[in-house]
């Protein structure tokens, strides 16, 4: 299938906050030849649990196959294909854009009114625009910023959560709480 016709889906995974877990997930995607679009990982309100959001190209692999393979990893506590149900998803981008004349500054201000975006830094030459929105909205804004002159960009990748009573959580507390495993302040990868 061509890349244009590909459909993306979003998987959320609760994983143990332990060294090497990100490596295990990345290794799984590589060796099973799953095509990963983005992967984000961060801590949760549970001290021993991190949450990953993985966006995958659905044209090449079906969601269930990825979910069952993820589930085989011992450190993966729970897996959910969140894009199969009502959900909220957000991507955050920091975009550095030319702002060295009145036209560019006006254009940026107008764009930030139309998009869920704001200017978080502005100087004589460049401004940084921050947008937090669904991925397609971020893409749309990038297209509109492009003619002004993008010089640098960074994106977090998508994070997602099911709406309403759809809750993906665990009360997991590890059996091993020794000096190193207890050191959950730093997410070790």
């Amino acid at each position, binding site marked *: 299938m061509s890349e244009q016709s590909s459909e993306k889906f979003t998987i959320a995974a609760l994983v*143990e906050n332990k060294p090497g877990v990100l490596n295990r997930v990345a*290794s799984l995607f590589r060796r099973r030849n799953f095509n990963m679009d983005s992967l984000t990982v961060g801590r949760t309100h549970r001290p021993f649990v991190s949450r990953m959001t993985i966006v995958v190209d659905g044209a090449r692999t079906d969601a269930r196959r990825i979910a069952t393979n993820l589930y085989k*990893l*011992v450190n*993966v*506590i*729970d897996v959910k294909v969140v894009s199969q149900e009502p959900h909220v998803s957000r991507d955050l981008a920091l975009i550095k854009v030319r702002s060295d004349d009145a036209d560019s500054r006006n254009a940026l201000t107008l764009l930030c009114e139309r998009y869920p975006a704001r200017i978080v830094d502005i100087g004589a030459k460049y401004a940084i625009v921050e947008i937090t929105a669904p991925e397609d909205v971020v893409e749309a804004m990038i297209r509109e910023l492009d003619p002004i002159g993008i010089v640098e960009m960074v994106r977090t990748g998508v994070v997602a959560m099911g709406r309403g009573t759809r809750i993906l959580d665990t009360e997991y507390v590890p059996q*091993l709480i*020794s000096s190193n*495993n207890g050191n959950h302040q730093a997410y070790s990868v």
Partner: protein
Amino acid sequence: MLLTGAEIIMECLLREGVEVMFGYPGGAILPTYDAMTKYPQLHHVLVRHEQGAAHMADGYARATGRVGVAIATSGPGATNLVTGIATAMMDSSPIVCITGQVTRGAIGSDAFQETDVTGVTLPITKHNYLVDDVADLAYIIREAFHIARTGRPGPVLIDVPKDVQNAQTEFIYPEGEIRLPGYRPPTQANQEEVSAALELINSAQRPIILAGHGITMAGAMSELRELAERAQIPVSLTLLGKGAIPENHPLVTRMMGMHGEAASNYAIQEADLIIALGMRFDDRVTGNIKTYAPNARKIHVDIDASELNKNVKVDVGIAGDVKTVLRQFLPGVKTTQHPQWIARIRDWQEDSNERDVLQVGTESKLLSAQVINDLWHFTEGNAVTITDVGQHQMVEAQYYPHQRPSTLITSGGLGTMGFGLPAAIGAKFGKPDEEVWAIVGDGGFQMTLCELATAVQENVNINIAIINNAFLGMVRQWQEFFYEERYHATPMISPDFCKLAEAYGIPSMRVTNREQMEESVQFARSINGPKLIEYVVEKEEIVYPMVPAGADLHNMIRRPKPGEEVKS
């Protein structure tokens, strides 16, 4: 009780019921080797190469169903395990590998004999651990054994830095439930799945069961047999599924796939229902996936949910323990007959019998099929056979029918040459009262023949049968069929195997004609300890039938019937 990490390893192995460990010492694992001196009840077998240790642990595990243990040092010791670990992974064999690692402070510094072994083995283990606190060690070993033997079994590696082995801690064995929130192997089918499967089973006209390794690992032999007999469903076996049901059972069509029985393959292609139990539709079993079993609805039961719909789309996919699921099926399975279907399979089997190489006159040369068939005959079909990989492996599968589970041990998924001899040593440790035959080719044997010394040092009572055709036979066969007989890098000069055996102090015999077959088995049985028999066979044999890689399963290259023209 204050113990060192090394002593904790020994204490934990004892509590897991370990009786034998296969390993090789080295700098980073020396504290553990020193601790072994205090635990004489844990027998250590010194191998000659760490690959052998992993294969021995694997052979032990497959023969017994218990977890095999391999031990190696850091760096090259650990990397030498890799082929053995990958072999165990592909065939779902429960082994635990314990490797030494450089001290924690040195990790990441490219220290002497340092390798990122948890990184290297990550894709070929079910799970692995780098222990960075001696307080974790007992939990980790317990978890490792649990993960290795439950669910879909597999290898687990524990990498233990040298200073963790030396560190002391209060040893309290972690009793009670193992809490692994992300590890919940499936157990049973839900009611809808059972009903859907039963509807298909009870309405099928041309059903066939595909029985795999999962049957013997789950101990579901009697359930399988009951299902087959009650609904009169023919049973075809994967290579690793051999022993799931006695191969002389009238409903059994024997092996399927690339070198399977033609009757099995034709039946799969004509079946209207496939009941796949504890098997994974490997490409060597399906041939061209697009034309595979085109007429069949499919039920697939496997303990690994990720196997369902992986290679073959199925109508009813059930993630569960095959014994439990079959027990859920059985009350709803109706007693039926499929006389026409079974008669059709009989016709295919009769056609195959006419093509059987054993029907060909013996003339001068010894054929590998004759060797295997005679070994089967003179061992009363009751030996535990461990094969290597190649033509002799397929000939074993075809000409040595197995009646009991875990009596054929072979590297199926990875196809690891060199597996045979070490795996046989491990199997014999697991089944000391069984007659164990390592059936190996001249190529594979030479990959791990250093383990002859291990067999001598431990006086392991195994029979090593080398099927010597002076070729890498299976590769030669592919060259004959698909590379216009350009036999490049397949003719093989070997040492005089009998003299080699003599150098190791191993009694040996060379067999060059069929009249010596019975004598060779008697010779083997007359010696307590390792012995080697070289069977010098025809050089350019072909294993028939053959489904060329990627071809349709029914498009087999068949052996011509006597009097038929050989297809060129």
